[in-house]
């Protein structure tokens, strides 16, 4: 084998490593610090050692048993995060799939308009819309109601999801619809029995995307929800920094816990994520 390693191959490998190593460090160093803090005692965390002398899981005990002022509502807030992310994922999927099917397969009049408007929403950064959104939710009396955050996140996630699903839908052979129509399928049966099963990879990708978007959201959650029992864990993590002597080791332990579900989801569905998100990227 070593004989086969020509200079060209070596230089290609070297170039890859040259790019790969910095990217790897860039990604891993924050995670390393996260873990380091999470398993260090209170005084040891900032000692500058590469690895704590007495690694401990005590911080996790504090978090899970809500033994700190900042962690009084840990399980409720975790629950909120799960509930809101799940709802956003489900509702976005429903909205985006229906829209994509109607526009791409039923060739609804005005479909192009909807697509252009969807694209247009991304000309305005979500942060600019925070205040208008706050006011709108206020008008509907939804402030400090978790529905406000769910609806806001669905609004933000949907346009992109509609685009991805529309592009993926366009790639399904048109003859399948015609065959189904001749076989006697109504549009709803076509949707349920032919379209959905074939769209599964894209649906998983889009569902995961919107779910993670909602899970990681801080700004809107912070604005729209205020009660400690209503906020998501992301906002609760932010509260840790409101004091001068923040309990960093607990913040990092909680953060680590909060980061695990997305990592697990991403790992479980990465096959679909990569395929699905690039599926709509280029028109073949």
């Amino acid at each position, binding site marked *: 084998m070593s004989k086969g390693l020509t200079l060209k191959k070596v230089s290609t490998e070297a170039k890859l490593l040259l790019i790969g190593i910095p990217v790897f460090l860039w990604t891993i160093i924050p995670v390393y610090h996260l873990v380091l803090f999470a398993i260090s005692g209170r005084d040891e965390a900032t000692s500058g050692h590469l690895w704590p002398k007495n690694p401990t899981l005590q911080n996790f005990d504090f978090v899970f048993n809500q033994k700190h002022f900042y962690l009084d509502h840990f399980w409720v807030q975790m629950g909120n995060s799960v509930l809101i992310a799940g709802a956003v994922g489900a509702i976005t999927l429903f909205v985006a799939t229906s829209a994509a099917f109607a526009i791409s397969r039923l060739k609804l009049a005005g479909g192009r308009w909807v697509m252009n408007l969807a694209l247009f929403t991304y000309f305005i950064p979500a942060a600019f819309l925070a205040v208008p959104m706050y006011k709108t939710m206020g008008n509907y009396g939804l402030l400090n109601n978790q529905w406000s955050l769910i609806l806001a996140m669905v609004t933000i996630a949907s346009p992109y999801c509609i685009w991805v699903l529309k592009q993926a839908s366009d790639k399904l*052979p048109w*003859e*399948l619809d*015609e*065959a*189904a*129509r*001749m*076989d*006697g*399928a109504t549009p709803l*049966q076509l949707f349920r*029995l*032919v379209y959905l*099963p*074939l769209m599964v990879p894209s649906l998983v990708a889009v569902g995961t995307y919107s779910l993670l978007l909602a899970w990681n959201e801080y700004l809107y959650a912070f604005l729209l929800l205020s009660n400690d029992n209503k906020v998501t864990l992301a906002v609760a993590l932010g509260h840790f920094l409101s004091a001068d002597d923040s309990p960093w080791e607990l913040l990092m332990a909680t953060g680590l816990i909060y980061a695990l579900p997305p990592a697990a989801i991403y790992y479980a569905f990465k096959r679909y994520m990569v395929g699905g998100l690039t599926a709509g990227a280029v028109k073949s």
Partner: protein
Amino acid sequence: MATVSFRKIEKAYGPVKVIHGIGFDIADGEFVVLVGPSGCGKSTLLRMLAGLEEITGGEILIDDKVVNDLESKDRDIAMVFQSYALYPHMTVRDNMAFSLKLRKADAKLTAERVENAARILNLGALLDRYPKELSGGQRQRVAMGRAIVRDPKVFLFDEPLSNLDAKLRVAMRAEIKALHQRLKTTTVYVTHDQIEAMTMADRIVVMHDGIIEQIGTPLELYDRPGNLFVAQFIGSPAMNVFEGVLQREGGVMSVSALGALWPVAGLSGGSHGQKVHYGIRPGDLTLADAGIAAEVVVVEPTGAETELLLQVGSGATAQQLILVMHGRTDAQPGQTVHLAIDGAMAHVFDGQGGQRL
């Protein structure tokens, strides 16, 4: 079992008219092939019958009932698509049962129909496979099975064999023909391949630029093409055609072209001095000791037959002709041979409109 009628069918996409008032009838149990070059409107016509395209003008009748405003599913027709259009996420069994399932047919009846279709098409062993696990020919058979299970009034085929390789195409051609002889269901079949049309059809409809050029049985079209287009479209290798002038001397008629007189017989019209197209099929040219002189350009032996590319005339008016003969020949390129022609086999078309004389 059903009859199909097209009455003054027109189709336009915006201002562009692609079908210009087509009308013909299909008898119960007949196998009709729509054939023509791509863009002639044959697929559009089929899709209008299928209910997949709006009908701009005219009426389509199935069993004497106007179906213009009926949904595809209510027309009781089944279609086999060029790309097969099998549902990739369903097994062969589910693919075939899909239409019955949508109609909420009895499960036992559905299973029976699927088994029956699978037996006819020799798909029994493949029922639990997915389309991606099948070869092209098998997929094609599943697509046909899906149509058979429905037991429709009319079968529609939209270029069903063009995705298959040459050998399989010949085999499937025979299978479809055999299937039709067995089921006797009225069938409309679209193809651009005139050999498919010739071998399978009870009647052929030759289309060109949105109109019908000629309707007839395969041999009618071959023996008496109604115009120059049909003459050149039907038959392989294509008919030799060149321009000439009709000569009528006494009772004898001939066409003067390429510096020779080409015999003609049994002409119903045409006047002396009229400009015409003279057509003769490659198989109707024979080598003889005397006759019209031609130079051999290429000799292509295929075993049972030999194809000769000949050149008649010289200079600017030279014309290349193809001759197909049974058996072998000693003719060599560069050699001069002589052609004998039976005037009854010649086809003469008007020099202007291309209509048969």
